[in-house]
C-alpha cells in the first residue's frame, strides 16, 4: 500500500528491505553508522544527512563505518562485489569521486570486459549531487555525465521518492556496477511510495507530462523544475511533453526520439555544465537521428561553464530555473 514518505525515507526503506532479503547486501561508507570507536552512540549519524539511520541496529555487522579514505573503501566495495557480496558504498558527496575515480572507472567498470566476461561486479555507489545549498564548488557538482561516459557503469538519477526506492532496489539486484545519485534538494520531497518492495527498471524513461507542442528532457532535480515550467506554460496554452530518462546509462533514447518526431521541438534541462553534458549528449543524438523532424534549433538549459559559486546571489543565478526553462520553451515554440 502506498503512503507518503520522503525521498530520503524511500532510499532508507529500499536499503532496509534489500538487506533483509539478501544477506550479501552490506552498506559501507563514511559515518553510514557514525560513531565507530567513539565513546557515544555507535550509530549516532546514519550518514551525514541521516539517510542510512537505523540500518545499523536492524542489520548487525552489515553497516560499516570506514576511515575517510575513499580510494580504500570504494575499492574494497568493488573487491567485495567480486567475491560474492552486494555492497552499497556511500561516497557522501559526488565531488569526492576525484580522490577515488580510479577504483570506479579503471577497476569496477572495466573488469567484465577486460576479463573476457568472466567477472561480475554488483556494487552500488551512492552519492549526493547538485547545487542549491551554498556548499560551493567542491560539494555541489552533478558529474553524472562523467560516469555516463564510461562503458561498464550504469548511472541512475531518481527525481522523486517512488523512483528512488524502485531504482535503488533494482541497483542493488543488478549485476553491474551502478552509480546511484541522489539530489540533496530532493531528500525532503514527499511522494506516494508503496510499502512493499518493487523495482523500477533501468533504461525506461518516464513521461511525466504529455503534450504535443514541445518536448522537454530533464534530468534529476530538473524534472521537478520542468514540471513547474510545464504547468505554467499549460496555462499559456503551450503543451509540453516532459521526459525523465531516470537512468543516463542505459539511456532510453527511443522515448525521446518518438516524442521529438511528434513535437519537432526540444528543450533539454541539465543542472550540469553545458560542455560534454547530458544536454549535449541528447542534443547530439537528436541532431543525428531526427534532424528532419526539428522545427526549431534545440535549446539546452544548463548551468554555465563555471564552478558552482558560494554566494547566494551567484548560486541562484547558476542553477537553471523554471523561468529559464519557460523562456527556452517559448523560444523554440515561437521560432520561425
Amino acid at each position, binding site marked *: 500500500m502506498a503512503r507518503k514518505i520522503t525521498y530520503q525515507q524511500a532510499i532508507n526503506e529500499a536499503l532496509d528491505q534489500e538487506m533483509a532479503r539478501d544477506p550479501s547486501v552490506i552498506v559501507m561508507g563514511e559515518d553510514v553508522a557514525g560513531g565507530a570507536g567513539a565513546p557515544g552512540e555507535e550509530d549516532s549519524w546514519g550518514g551525514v544527512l541521516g539517510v542510512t539511520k537505523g540500518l545499523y541496529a536492524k542489520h548487525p555487522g552489515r553497516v560499516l563505518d570506514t576511515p575517510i579514505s575513499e*580510494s580504500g573503501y570504494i575499492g574494497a566495495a568493488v573487491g567485495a562485489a567480486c567475491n560474492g557480496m552486494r555492497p552499497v558504498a556511500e561516497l557522501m558527496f559526488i565531488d569526492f569521486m576525484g580522490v577515488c575515480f580510479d577504483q570506479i572507472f579503471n577497476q569496477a567498470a572495466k573488469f567484465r570486459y577486460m576479463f573476457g566476461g568472466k567477472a561480475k561486479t554488483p556494487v552500488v555507489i551512492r552519492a549526493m549531487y547538485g547545487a542549491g545549498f551554498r556548499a560551493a564548488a567542491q560539494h555541489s557538482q552533478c558529474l553524472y555525465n562523467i560516469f555516463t561516459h564510461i562503458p561498464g557503469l550504469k548511472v541512475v538519477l531518481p527525481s522523486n521518492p517512488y523512483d528512488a526506492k524502485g531504482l535503488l532496489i533494482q541497483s542493488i539486484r543488478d549485476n553491474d556496477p551502478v552509480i546511484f545519485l541522489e539530489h540533496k534538494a530532493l531528500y525532503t520531497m514527499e511522494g506516494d511510495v508503496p510499502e512493499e518492495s518493487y523495482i523500477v527498471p533501468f533504461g525506461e524513461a518516464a513521461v511525466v507530462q504529455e503534450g504535443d507542442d514541445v518536448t522537454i528532457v530533464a534530468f534529476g532535480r530538473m524534472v521537478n523544475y520542468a514540471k513547474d515550467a510545464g504547468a505554467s506554460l499549460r496555462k499559456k496554452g503551450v503543451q509540453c511533453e516532459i521526459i525523465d530518462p531516470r537512468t543516463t546509462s542505459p539511456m532510453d533514447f527511443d522515448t525521446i526520439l518518438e516524442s521529438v518526431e511528434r513535437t519537432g521541438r526540444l528543450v533539454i534541462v541539465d543542472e550540469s555544465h553545458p560542455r560534454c553534458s547530458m544536454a549535449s549528449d541528447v542534443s547530439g543524438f537528436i541532431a543525428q537521428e531526427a534532424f528532419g523532424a526539428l522545427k526549431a534549433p534545440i535549446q539546452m538549459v544548463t548551468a554555465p561553464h563555471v564552478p558552482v559559486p558560494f554566494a547566494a546571489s551567484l548560486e541562484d543565478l547558476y542553477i537553471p530555473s523554471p523561468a529559464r526553462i519557460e523562456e527556452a520553451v517559448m523560444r523554440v515554440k515561437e521560432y520561425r
Partner: protein
Amino acid sequence: MSSSLTREGLLQAYRTMRTIREFEERLHVDFATGEIPGFVHLYAGEEASATGICMHLNRDDYIASTHRGHGHCIAKGVDPVGMMAEIWGKRTGTCKGKGGSMHIADLDVGMLGANGIVGGGGPLICGTALASKLRGSNNVGVCFFGDGASNQGTIFEAMNLAAVWKLPVIFVGENNGYAEATASKFSVACENIADRASAFGMPGVITDGFDFFAVHEAAGEAVKRAREGGGPTLLEVKLSRYYGHFEGDQQTYRAPGEVQKLRETKDCLMQFARRVTSRGELSMAELEAIDVEVKTLIDASVVKAKADPLPLPEDLMADVYVSY
C-alpha cells in the same frame, strides 16, 4: 632453515618457478620478433616470491596482482596455455583477447587480475578479504605490489583499512629496486618498504626474494596469522627483475653486469636446485625431467597461441555489462 615442504611440495615449487621462468624467457624471445601486440612486463628473476607465497593459498583465496603479473597468475593456478593465447591477443585467451598481458584475470582460481594501474589492487583485495571475513570463512587475500606502488596512496589507504577492519590480508611488496627507471633507493623515503608497516600497526617482515624457502616461511607465518584472525601483515620481498621494466627497455639506468651477476650468484631456481639436491630431497634427474616437461608445455602454448583465431568483430561489443 628446515623446510616444512613434502617431496610433492618441493616438486610443485620447482615446477611452478620453472614454468614462470620458461614462460617469461620465451616471451622475451618472441616479443623481439614484433609479433606480440602491446606492452609486456616480465617477472623472470622474481619467481620465488609468487611461488613461495601462493603455495600457501587455496582456490578460494584471492590475489591482486600488478602489471608484472604473469608469475602471480601461474603461481595462483591460471592455465599458462590460456595466458599465452591472451598475450598473443587471441580469442582463446584467458580473457578472450580483451585484456592482454596487463589484465589477465581468472576469478575461478582466485586471481583478481593483473592491473594496469600501479597500486590499483590494494583496495580491491581489502574487499575480497572483507567478504571472506563477513562470511565467516578463513580465506585470505594477497596484494602483490611493487616498490613503485609502495608510494601510491591506494596502498597506504588499503593498509590502513585492512588494519582498521583487521582484515585477512597479506601485502606483498616486491621490491625489485626499480620503479620503471627510477631506483627505489630514490623513490622510497625510508630504508625498507616493510618499515612502513609500523605506521599501520601491522607486522613488517623483510625476506630474501632469491630464496624460495625464506619467502615460503615468511609467507606461511603471515598467511597463518591472517587465517587465524590476526589481521594484515606487510611482507617486503627483496628481489630483482632480469629484464627491463617493459620489453624493449634498454635498461641504461642499471649497473653494467648487474643482472648477469645476480643470475650467476643468486638465481632462485639455481639456489633451490642446489639446496634440494645437496640434501638429497630431490634428484637432479627429477628436476631436469620437470625442465623438459615445462619446455614442452610452453612450446606447445606458443604454437597454439600463434595458430588460434583472433577475436571476431562481434566480440567487440560483448561483455561490457552483464545486462544493458
